[in-house]
């Protein structure tokens, strides 16, 4: 088993954090993982992306030329990665910022209005956790419990209020998928 996931969006959307928490959680589950952030000469507000590989055996290349899953937090990410997704793969769209549909018919599309949900929660910065919760519920790459533990490990220095709202984001994202499925 080898699952490759690309997270992509604007700098500031928490794209690298989503990937990091997924990789850390899968590692704690006993899986082999690699996490490769994009490190071009990018500017704030420019593109940011990272690739997470999860496998039950040693991982050869940390690069994904045909990812199983793509999480597109904005429109340029959809345009950039739609063509690369593996046949029968899934793309997760932040439908608040992506106003077009993928053209391919051999992939599944899952739309989550992450900004709207986050606004209702009272903090737009948790869009990444909402998306990650949704991805985990849909793909079962790692459990919601593992993600919660990963999140706790990553933001242990932050206040309990921040922890609470991030956890809430993961839960609501997962619920959104389970309700829709």
């Amino acid at each position, binding site marked *: 088993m080898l699952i490759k996931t690309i997270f992509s969006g604007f700098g500031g959307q928490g794209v690298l954090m989503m990937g990091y928490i997924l990789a850390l959680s899968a590692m704690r589950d006993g899986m082999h993982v690699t*996490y490769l952030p994009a490190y071009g000469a990018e500017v704030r507000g420019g593109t940011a992306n990272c690739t997470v590989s999860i496998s039950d055996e040693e991982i050869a*290349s940390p690069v994904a*030329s045909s990812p199983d899953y793509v999480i597109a937090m904005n429109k340029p990410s959809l345009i950039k990665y739609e063509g690369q997704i593996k046949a029968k793969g899934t793309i997760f769209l932040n439908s608040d910022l992506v106003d077009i549909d993928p053209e391919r018919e051999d992939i599944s599309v899952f739309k989550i209005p992450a900004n709207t949900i986050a606004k209702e929660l009272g903090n737009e910065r948790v869009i990444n956790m909402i998306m990650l919760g949704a991805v985990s519920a849909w793909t079962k790459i790692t459990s919601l419990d593992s993600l919660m533990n990963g999140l706790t490990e990553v933001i242990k220095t932050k206040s309990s209020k921040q922890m609470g709202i991030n956890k809430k984001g993961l839960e609501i994202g997962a619920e959104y998928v389970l309700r829709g499925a």
Partner: protein
Amino acid sequence: MLLRGSHVIAEAAVRAGCRFYFGYPITPQNELTEYMANALASLPDGVFIQSESELAAINMVIGVSMTGKRVMTSSSSPGISLKQEGISYLSGQELPAVIINTMRGGPGLGNIAPAQGDYLQATRGGGHGDYRTIVLAPGSGQELADITRMAFEYADRYRIPVIILGDGMMGQMMEPVEFPDPIDPKSLPPKPWVLDGAEGRPSRIIKSLILDTSAMEEHNWKLFRKYEAISREVPEMEQFLTDDAHLAVIAYGTASRIAKGAIKRVREMGLKVGLLRPKTLWPFPKRILLQMSRTISDFLVFEMSAGQMLEDVKLSLEGRGRIHFYGRPGGIISTPDEIAKVINNIYFKEGLERE
């Protein structure tokens, strides 16, 4: 711990008892400098200086090394070129030091993508004069930790600069890693040659200026004998599925990981292919490679360059076996599928036996 490669090297260096780091920023290895700034600032005996240039950094390394302390600098390709003068001086003065090269695309300023174009510079000395440096090539996050510890050991054991030759991918990628226990620098064995004040003992001189030609020749031969000892004692090669292989891919660092992925794919199709991964680039594991040529007929050298390690493979095999080459320079990262296709082509063109 899940850590990026540059942080792994930095943490492993601190745990190896390195308390001195000097560097000048360059992408894609700034995370190493950043980590050292934080780590050394929080240690009472730690010294971190972001120098005004690469030249300054490598000369600070020379100064600290003369006092016997473990010291490190790091850079990426263009910055390593600037440090070559200092590395030559370290070699002439027989001073231990650890130098990290997180290779990027070149020549010139090139780009900031992972590449392997500095192989010849690293393994042939790089600067002026008749010298070599030990060159280590890590292949995973865990190996970055282990190899960094080894680099400091080798540097002290042989009084030689040791280069860890990584690339932008090894530096940026995060993988799980477990570190060895930290070494207290005070517990390291004393070095009988250091400059630490001559009170109560005859004074010592460490220099590379030897105007007398006979004395210079003698010094060169002394270095040469040391390099011969290193060539016997240090070479290391990982072998993966080579026992029954007809074809072996030879690759190091990031390229070796991609090759491994490709080999797993072609094995599923019944092709008997293995991997030879040099963990030391100088000294190159010649003897092991020559031995392999008894059972393996074809060797595919795969590099993220236009062909540099290829030369060492040819020298090692001394005309035995058929040598093939595939390389992508300039910061291109091949996919395992791409390499699997290359293997397939060679395998069938040469008519090698399938399972």
